[in-house]
């Protein structure tokens, strides 16, 4: 199949690449050996944050290199990672108290509500909204709104208030998961059973079966998708 080539600019130089390339595959096509700025290649890790400008558009845009299809005359740079302060804390000593944001990320309260973060987020998350939820101390809402964050760093690279939205959200989610979600009572029971050695005899028996007996046991096992 012959592919049409289109012009793009990488680190300011002009190149021609096949139409339909992503930023990452365009770089590879041109002979760049990627040693940074790439990870999963599937939109899950946030390693491939890139900035670009389109022809005739004054806006600086951001996207994931592995998910963004190049367009004619696009100007591209990669941002392998965004240096960002991360609070160091002992999770077991924290409380689900909004005070922790004041302590660890005081710049949070400087948010100008400019919405720049939301506009650039390649996951299309309501970033400003979760920042505002953190300001209000609403852990659950931060957790829900930020859940699909892949920590690419683009929001914080553009934030005029120098907030590291993704680290704030990380802290909020961990607090929510650890302290605020309802616990399973049955899990504790299962753990006690295991600790008390309830299954040891069963394991001994299974592990002493001959290959033949084990196969029979397996193929005859009951299949039951009820929870209780």
């Amino acid at each position: 199949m012959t592919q049409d080539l289109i012009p793009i600019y990488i680190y300011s130089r002009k190149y021609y690449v096949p139409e339909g390339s992503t930023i990452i595959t365009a770089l590879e096509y041109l002979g760049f050996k990627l040693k940074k700025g790439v990870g999963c290649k599937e939109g899950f890790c946030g390693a491939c944050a890139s900035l670009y400008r389109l022809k005739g558009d004054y806006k600086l845009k951001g996207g994931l290199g592995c998910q963004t299809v190049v367009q004619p005359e696009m100007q591209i740079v990669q941002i392998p990672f965004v240096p960002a302060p991360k609070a160091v804390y002992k999770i077991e000593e924290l409380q689900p108290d909004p005070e922790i944001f004041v302590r660890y990320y005081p710049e949070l309260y400087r948010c100008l509500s400019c919405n720049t973060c939301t506009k650039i987020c390649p996951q299309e998350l309501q970033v400003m909204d979760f920042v505002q939820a953190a300001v209000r101390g609403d852990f659950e809402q931060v957790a829900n709104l930020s859940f699909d964050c892949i920590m690419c760093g683009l929001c914080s690279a553009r934030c005029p208030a120098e907030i590291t939205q993704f680290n704030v959200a990380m802290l909020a989610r961990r607090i929510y998961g650890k302290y605020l979600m309802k616990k399973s009572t049955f899990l504790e029971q299962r753990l006690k059973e295991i600790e008390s050695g309830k299954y040891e005899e069963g394991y001994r028996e299974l592990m002493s079966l001959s290959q033949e007996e084990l196969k029979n046991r397996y193929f005859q096992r009951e299949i039951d998708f009820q929870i209780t």
Partner: protein
Amino acid sequence: MGYPDYMYESIKLVEATRPRRAEMAKEGLQKFLKPLSAEEREKVLRDNHPDYQPEARKPIRVGPNKGEHLTSEVVDILERPSRLPRDFKLEPVDYETDVLVIGGGGAGCQAALWAAKNGAKVILCTKLRLGDANSMMSQGGMQASVNPGDSPLIHYLDAIGGGHFDNKPELLKIMTSEAPYIVKFLEELGVIWDKLPDGHYQTQSGGGASRRRMLSCRDYTGAEIMRVLRDEVRNHPEEITILEFLPALELIKDEEGKAAGAVLFDMETGQYHVVKAKVVVLATGGFGRIHIRGFPTTNHYGATMDGLVMAYRAGARLLHMDSVQFHPTGAIYPPQIHGFLITEKIRAMGGQPVNAKGELFVYPMEPRDVEASEYIQECKKGLGVRTPDGQYGIWLDSPLIEILHGSGTIERAFPAMFRQYKRFGIDIRVLPMLVYPTLHYQNGGVEIEENCHTSVPNLLAAGEVSGGVHGRNRLMGNSVLDYNVFGRRAGIEAAKLARETEIKGRLNVDHVWEYEEELKGEGIETKGYSPLLLPEYRNLESLKRHRTEFDPFAPAGL
């Protein structure tokens, strides 16, 4: 973007059969379709599965597994010489530590955390950023027997049958009996599991499991666990030093033959770094990026089998390295997402595999190897859908999910998948996905025992790089569990071992040279080096004017 016009002819046929197939699903597919019998399974595997093709395996001529048949591409990489120059000096030592963890995925982070908790000083080195790993990508979930109608014993039975009874029983016992504890441990770190209103876990079924046992975090399960582990590792700067963009190249031993560190390689500057350590934990993950039999892969960019190569040269035995997991549903169109994983949960929730004519041709929940073989067979029969670049795929009818579970289900349960396709102009709520099997998982690896020891003293291994726990076929949800259980155990054992260990005599890489002598002795001359470190995707045309002497990654024979 979106599908090319000609594909809509086939999509129309899929739409035409959809209402009927929805009825069938409501009544229970088992009524209309039977899983294959043992003989039928055997036949479809033999005729179609990549592992069963004649050139798929060959004997390895050197090293601890000499004479054994392994996957051919694995053999090719193992039979290459090292990247270290012969006059290489292990001086000066750049870093000294109790425990060196190689690999910054889930297994590596668990190992580092638990070694630190148990009093060891740790260095964790990794090839890309911390968390750029297969662990970040798992979507479907993690198995653990957290429901009353289930038990660790049933989990054990499911996994050993799934593994074709080749699993090491003592490893499987540990994995299945520690699973519920891992759920709790991760929750205490702040992992947000999908839950029911009463606080109990939402669980799904999965291929080969006889109970609902799959815990999830939307379809970002791996990302959620991985980013929490990464955050926690970064909460211990005193005990854990993180070295990013610094892959290991070879292991180092002391005069007694114990593992005693590694040579790291800065891919940007070309500099070597020497780490001296009392214990080494290998957590480098799998091999998807070696593209066995030319298949695309679901794996991350750094999954190039490095740890296996280093360990093998150091004398570690491998187990089950003759079997490869192909996932039935990889994306085959649009080309930008070729090979990407479509989670098994799509089928678990009713998305049916159908051919170009819109016919449901296979029971959707066969074990992965069987299901994949059936798709390959259907395409061979000419009933696949052709892509513009001449490949074939079958439809995975995602819109059925909205019909069966109500509209809005896809966006809620599969945000990652929905987003993935939307980026390329395809709305999977109304259009099916085109799929074909993709290279997914390294079933075998470096053989370990209960406390993660390999056959090389003071070299431990955990996670996808290790072999034994899954036998020759891993079930969905058991590898996230695996890296958590054994990553933790490796960390605890490493700290203990470090306290008892004294590094004796001269640090050396003599095993590397001995291995090369063995290659020579067998008359093996190969182009290129291993470990690969990075896969090669540069356009060969663009490398024509390439000065290979400046490029440690220059493809062999350029």
